[in-house]
């Protein structure tokens, strides 16, 4: 009782799913091993294989970041719009989160290191 329309749907779905891979699946994107945490007066490198909570003093107050399972995120920030917190976990090379009001930025490094970011 499988109809011609069924076959069409199956074929279409198959191609749809297959075509999603080149579109979204990014197997080559490298995971970062280090996060660079910069604040007004310091820049420190955090190894992502060591879980922990780190505090850094910014213009407005303390920004708190958390490293866990090779990922890092901003836990708390004194800025008003909290975009840095909303960007969630970062784990891939090149990912970047910043709270400019507080002058704190977070940048993930791997084999590819940047001396500066143009934004």
């Amino acid at each position, binding site marked *: 009782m499988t109809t*011609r*329309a*069924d076959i069409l749907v*199956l074929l279409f*779905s*198959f191609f749809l*799913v297959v075509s999603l891979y080149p579109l*979204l699946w990014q197997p080559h994107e490298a995971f970062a091993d280090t996060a660079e945490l910069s604040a007004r007066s310091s820049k420190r490198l955090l190894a992502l294989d060591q879980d922990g909570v780190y505090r850094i003093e910014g213009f407005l107050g303390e920004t708190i970041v958390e490293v866990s399972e090779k990922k890092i995120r901003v836990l708390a920030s004194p800025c008003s719009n909290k975009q840095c917190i909303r960007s969630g976990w970062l784990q891939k090379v090149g990912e970047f989160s910043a709270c400019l009001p507080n002058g704190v930025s977070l940048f993930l490094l791997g084999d590819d290191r940047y001396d500066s970011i143009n934004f």
Partner: protein
Amino acid sequence: MLSVSVTREDRLIAGFASLAILVHLIEAAFPSPLPGVKPGLANIITLIVFFRYGLRMAVWVSLLRVLVASLLLGSFLSPTFALSLAGAVAVIGILSLISAFPSRFGLSPLGVAVLCALSHTSAQFLLAYWLLVPHPGLLGLYPIFMTFALIFGFISGVISQKVYRQLGAA
């Protein structure tokens, strides 16, 4: 005294919904291979109801299933419930679309099951990305989820087709 008249349709809805809830609960009890990946076998019931009794009853069955299962699992109004509901709504959307065409577009339960599975997963994924984990890394997982959806959609489609054939039209 308050009297509620129960129609035949109500009984059918209640019967099928409890069947779907049972499947849903059993599925929830098993650990999934990948977080978030579920076979979605409860959709089989929705599909059979859709083919035997039409859209209206299928909507009832699937919404009741989501509601009652979440109450029983204690996830009512939690993110899990929202995801479940999003999936059910997407399936209802697809079913309404299909039933808008004469002779259901010529589709058997197999084709409909695959379409439902893909839209179910897509809706859940979009909601998860939007509300729960707004991380671009999540998008990379979408193809994988869709692959599982295709496979499980196919399996539940084959099952529904067989069951539907056994039962015959209502």
